[in-house]
């Protein structure tokens, strides 16, 4: 019965795919000189400092980082061929490659790095890099191809390297127009962008890495949804799906397609605005640590692709501590006990709504959380908003509680403060002064502890304990972002620490 119905309706997604953006890519173009990638969202801009997931498939193709990380987190050279960290941990000196040209033909040099750093320190232009730059004091040019970055306080090696890995030099000649015109050194040049339909790259003939890029053309086709992208892959219209859903990936894997997972997971969290209503009560917030049915959320919302989490960190993070998962396992009785200690009335505890993005995964998580809260005696409603309204409320702090992922959880722990809810200053949710000074102090301690391994670990442990006690963010699960599903004849994937798509080594046989 099920199979019959499937056969009757199974063609629908294929038809949908053919009637959306798929027409941009002709099936006859399938050849080894073109890789066709299905994506489900358009880019936000060509600015490499705008680290939003919509840009993850272009950043590492149009630009290069100063250094790269392997999947295990080991730093390796890129535009910087060598580096050294000062004994006093106040600076890092970089030696730059001399054989690199920007797409414009201009020479890449230390001046370009300085201009990029200057942009990053500007609160308006620095985008997601701005908060990371808060630890940087200044920089000095040590020659045409050498630069030193100086820090305000002694800074750990990992934090310095994280910053350098995050820096993707921009051509000074194009830095003012980088939103709309790419200006990098990357393996590919922008050939064409059809807004909402496709982005096409062609190989950079002057690329500095030997024998790369491996494929001449890269075509990203933007599909309306995951189902259409999946149908495109299955029907041969696309070779790869980038950043599709976990559920589709599992199904496609069963059908013989490849899944390529990277280390750069996101962590899905329950964000709490602790300046509002019952959430000002610490015990009330802490109760939510026990009200997250993490295992079922991971299984149902992400088809089991990911890990349950009671702290924000991905497993590769130096602050990762698995013991918290057991300590804060789903336990409605513990939650009820904490709720009873709050001194709040039932009316006060129920006087809020959970902000939910209209995306299916978010609604699934929200409904599981809503049911768990109901078991604990909390009767709350969901406020489901479209993506634009949701994002505005999220980033503006206009919510009591919301399910929304956080990133930068696989690198130096204080990098988590690049997420709006975790910011230690200018926090759009909490405002100033920060209502959780213990958290601000814990982040500061992590940033400034450069002593023995034990001392560093103690700083991480302190941060972890503060995070669960302050409980303004309740982690739920890590999940795959930038998931790659590819046809069996595609190979040569380079895994990126942030799960950005790296096309320069990919080939279709």
């Amino acid at each position, binding site marked *: *019965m*099920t199979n019959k*119905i*499937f056969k009757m*309706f*199974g063609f*629908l*997604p294929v038809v949908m795919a053919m009637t959306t953006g798929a027409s941009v890519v002709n099936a006859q173009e399938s050849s080894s000189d073109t890789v066709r990638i299905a994506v489900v969202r358009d880019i936000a801009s060509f600015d490499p400092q705008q680290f939003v997931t919509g840009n993850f498939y272009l950043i590492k193709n149009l630009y290069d980082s100063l250094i790269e990380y392997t999947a295990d987190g080991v730093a390796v050279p890129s535009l910087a061929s060598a580096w050294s960290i000062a004994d006093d941990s106040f600076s890092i000196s970089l030696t730059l490659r001399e054989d690199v040209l920007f797409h414009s033909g201009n020479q890449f040099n230390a001046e370009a790095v300085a201009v990029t750093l200057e942009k990053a320190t500007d609160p308006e232009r620095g985008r997601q890099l701005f908060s990371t730059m808060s630890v940087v004091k200044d920089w000095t040019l040590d020659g045409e191809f050498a630069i030193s970055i100086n820090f305000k306080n002694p800074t750990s090696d990992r934090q310095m390297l994280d910053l350098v890995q995050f820096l993707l030099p921009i051509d000074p000649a194009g830095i003012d127009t980088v939103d709309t015109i790419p200006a990098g050194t990357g393996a590919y040049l922008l050939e064409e962008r059809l807004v909402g339909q496709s982005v096409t790259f062609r190989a950079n003939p002057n690329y500095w890495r030997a024998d790369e890029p491996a494929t001449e053309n890269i075509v990203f086709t933007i599909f309306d949804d*995951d*189902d259409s992208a999946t149908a495109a892959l299955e029907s041969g219209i696309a070779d790869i799906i980038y950043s599709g859903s976990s*559920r589709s990936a599992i*199904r496609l894997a069963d059908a013989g397609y490849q899944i390529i997972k990277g280390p750069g997971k996101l962590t899905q969290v329950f964000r709490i605005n602790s300046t509002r209503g019952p959430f000002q009560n610490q015990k009330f917030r802490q109760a939510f640590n026990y009200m997250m*049915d993490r295992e*079922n959320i991971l*299984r*149902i919302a992400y088809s089991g692709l990911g890990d349950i989490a009671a702290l924000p960190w991905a497993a590769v993070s130096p602050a990762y501590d698995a013991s918290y998962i057991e300590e804060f396992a789903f336990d409605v009785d513990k939650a009820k006990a904490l709720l009873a200690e709050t001194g709040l009335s039932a009316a006060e505890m129920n006087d809020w709504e959970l902000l939910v993005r*209209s995306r*299916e995964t978010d*609604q*699934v998580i*929200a*409904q*599981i959380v*809503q*049911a768990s809260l109901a078991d604990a005696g909390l009767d709350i*409603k*969901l*406020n*489901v908003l*479209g993506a634009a309204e949701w994002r505005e409320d999220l980033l503006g702090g206009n919510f009591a509680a919301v399910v929304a992922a956080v990133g930068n959880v696989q690198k130096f722990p204080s990098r988590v403060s690049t997420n709006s809810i975790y910011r230690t200053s200018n926090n759009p949710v909490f405002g100033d002064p920060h209502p959780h000074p213990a958290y601000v102090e814990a982040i500061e301690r992590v940033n400034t502890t450069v002593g023995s391994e034990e001392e560093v670990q103690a700083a991480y442990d302190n941060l972890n304990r503060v995070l669960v006690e302050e409980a303004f963010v309740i982690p739920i699960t890590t999940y795959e972002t930038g998931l790659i599903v590819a046809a069996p004849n595609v190979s040569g994937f380079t895994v990126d620490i942030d799960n950005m798509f790296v096309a320069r080594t990919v080939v279709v046989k």
Partner: protein
Amino acid sequence: MRKSFQSAAKTIRNLMSRKGVVFSVIFLGALSFLAIFADILGFDYLTQNLIESLQPPSAEYWFGTDELGRDILSRVVYGTRTSLVTSAGAVTIAAVLGVPIGLVAGFFGGWRDAVLMRVVDVMLALPAILFAMALIAILGKGQMAAMIAVGITGIPSFARITRAQVLSLRNRDFVTAVEAFGGSATYSMFRTILPNSWSPIVVQAIVLASVAILLEAALSFLGMGVAPPTPSWGEMLRTGKSYLYEAPYYAVLPGIILTLTILSFDTIGRAMTDFLEGRHELGDHSSVDAESEK
């Protein structure tokens, strides 16, 4: 009065002589019964059984379970409430506002007719779904907003049909007689013309009911309907679409119920239209005659 009842009974007999109408009435009746008495009958649309997510139809779960292990049949039954209440509310709003507009426009004619009908033309020019979405953007999401939005999109059809009826009756003898005896314009409109215009208006109400259900489902499908976990057919179609490969029954079964519901309303509406058109061709104006007997 007795003749009116006889006429109504005759109408019902004629309609029920069609198999399609019989099936439609039984289907809608059964659906309404389930929706009204869902609580008593033990349907549970809310309880999650996460271990049993996406179970296929079985003796325990006739329509299977959704991604959260909830009984899809229960959600379809409760979704009927959402659809029928929204539809009934929308039809009421459309009729309460649209019929008087048509009455005034048709009865007075002149500039009133021109102004009102141009407004109606403007409303007709806007696609209903876009108009409803714009209204929901203003009113906010929720069942009441959907009801108002769908209701407002139905005003033009009621206004047009009522106006057409008024124009056909405006110069009939029984209307002229009422005016000759000093009946006011309000009396003529609401006590003389309107009672003799009900037939097409009722047909329009039935037709609009199906349109309203479809529109509500479309709004929910686009994520602009009721908030979860309250079920609605459109929301089930939207979510079920994502599980078309793993659990085709999730979208297909609610879709079949939605289709049958719309088809039922449409069948009844068409049968009534056919019957009324046939009766008019035969010159059978029972209600007019009954009014004249007073």
